[in-house]
């Protein structure tokens, strides 16, 4: 990973973290409604994996946080407008912050039911293959979601059709209140790749360089028509399942242990050690990020809510193939 890319990933991780902190403040203060599943602690893998994508590739992100969209380059004021259900977002108040969509960058949207992403990803892979393109699909999901039947169907179908899909598991140890060891028969989700005769790899999800290298390899393989891969990124959900989760199912000690492995200060320290970042540039980044968020929040506050009758729009497309 070159120096510029490292700094870029760091800035996106930082922006994602600060944006989620602000969103949590807005929700707790009752200033926006919204249904937000924070991704604090998982930004490293999200930003690093998405850094492997070309602009014309397809993305199916998971429900954990804003970093996917920040990493892909979706303007943050649009994310905030979707959260608030206002005009100026990406989905006209129809899907909330769970369905941020951006066709210009291949961001296909999100399935509200966990695991709905897998068949959609395989379908996008079919399109690429039928058209003879060399695009890829990145499909993110959690350890809990890997227990859906759709995972089996779609990964198997992708394997037998050699579809260019990279399945990226964010194993954060918890599915709401259910720890992975009680929900999932394998220790490593990547072991499931053997069931589909595809490459499976587990990496430290809090190390952006390790994630980037593993996903890059899988993406290149897919571009060459060699089929899907499964990458498991071990990480940890530092916040609750949603903003306001009482978290009565896990110990404070466990969470504190993982805060000491928080990928953001860890990567920051690495960049400081490598001389890519200084205290001065770090402070400048922080200031830039905060200013960008302030501006985006202001934009969101000034946006109107959609006209109520637009609830009746967008069910069907009026167009046909002629």
């Amino acid at each position: 990973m070159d120096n510029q890319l490292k700094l870029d990933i760091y800035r996106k991780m930082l922006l994602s973290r600060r944006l989620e902190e602000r969103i949590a403040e807005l929700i707790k203060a009752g200033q926006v409604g919204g249904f937000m599943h924070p991704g604090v602690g998982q930004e490293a893998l999200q930003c690093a994996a998405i850094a492997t994508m070309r602009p014309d590739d397809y993305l199916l992100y998971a429900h954990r946080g804003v970093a996917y969209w920040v990493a892909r380059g979706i303007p943050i004021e649009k994310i905030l407008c979707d959260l608030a259900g206002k005009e100026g977002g990406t989905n006209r108040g129809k899907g909330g912050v769970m369905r941020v969509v951006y066709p210009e960058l291949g961001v296909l949207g999100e399935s509200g039911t966990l695991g709905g992403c897998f068949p959609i990803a395989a379908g996008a892979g079919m399109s690429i293959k039928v058209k003879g393109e060399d695009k890829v699909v990145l499909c993110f999901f959690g350890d809990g979601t890997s227990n859906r039947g759709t995972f089996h169907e779609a990964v198997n179908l992708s394997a037998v059709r050699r579809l260019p899909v990279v399945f990226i598991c964010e194993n954060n140890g918890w599915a709401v209140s259910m720890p992975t060891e009680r929900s999932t028969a394998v220790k490593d989700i990547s072991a499931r790749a053997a069931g589909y005769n595809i490459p499976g790899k587990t990496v430290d999800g809090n190390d952006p360089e390790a994630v980037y290298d593993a996903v890059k390899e899988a993406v290149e393989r897919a571009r060459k028509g060699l089929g899907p891969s499964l990458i498991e990124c071990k990480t940890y959900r530092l916040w609750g399942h949603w903003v306001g989760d009482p978290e009565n199912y896990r110990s404070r000690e466990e969470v504190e242990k993982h805060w000491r492995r928080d990928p953001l200060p860890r990567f920051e320290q690495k960049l400081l050690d490598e001389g890519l970042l200084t205290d001065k540039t770090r402070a400048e980044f922080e200031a830039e990020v905060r200013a960008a968020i302030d501006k985006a929040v202001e934009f969101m506050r000034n946006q109107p809510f959609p006209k109520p009758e637009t609830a009746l729009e967008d069910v069907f497309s009026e167009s046909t193939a002629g």
Partner: protein
Amino acid sequence: MPTITYAEAIRQALIEEMRRDPSVILYGEDVANFGGIFRITAGLKDMFGDERVFDTPISENALVGGGVGAALTGLRPVVELQFADFLFTAGDEVVLKAGMWRYGHGGAYKIPLVVRCPSGATGVGPEHGQCPEAFFMHAPGLKIVSPSNPADAKGLLKSAIRDDNPVLYFEHKLLYATRGEVPEHEDFTVPLGKAAIPREGDDLTLVAISAMVPKALKVAERLAAEGHSIEVIDPRSLVPFDRETIIESVKKTGKIVVAEESYRTLGVGAEIGAILLENALEYLDRPLRRVAIPDVPIPTAAVLEAFVIPNEEKIYQACRELLS
């Protein structure tokens, strides 16, 4: 105009649309090498190659959800389910993904997807013999068609493939072998949302769906011999639904019978009844009669199946009751 079967009409529509538009693909269980369990797609793999016509694993969720993903990214997939009942197997992908992806994402994407659903009771029991259209009429975002004859089978399928929305295309298994005149030219289509009136009449409106249409026409013939003029309406599309044609007919006849192979409760007839209550109550001079499956699963043994599935005699009796 050539006379062909309903099955051949479906096949013609697929071939014509695949020739017309390279973004149309076709896949499902046993559709390519075997040609489909009802032989509709025999030979298509050789015509269009195995990227555009292919066999899949037994994975209904991945088939329909994959169709949504392919549609989002520029293809016009036609997915064959072996039996309409398997829509329930793929329920999330049908109702929540195909039906709601566009809406939930603010209209950012179009979903030109067709799911072919062989329907109807043929001695195959509760999980392979249903006509489940009414379940999906309740789901926003899905178009639904149920052709009753070869010309409509072809014309509606061509319109469904060209439509930029998900369409559930119900092809009744007992109609596959029926014959009728079908236009050959490539531009022939039947618009979605427009009912047909295969027989005009003044005394009673008989709405029939899918395989009930030929039965209804025979009943109308029998009643004509008894001096009654029956108007038979074939909605063809259930979503969008041509309310006007039914309302106008009832304004003329004052009496209506609905014959369908759905379960009685909240079936198509229930919706038609509600439409008439809202729009034409003052024109009804007799109560609506529904001829539908009593609310039981479809049994397998022929004698039991025949007892629950609407037939000519049941339709005739319902009409007689209103005409007396």
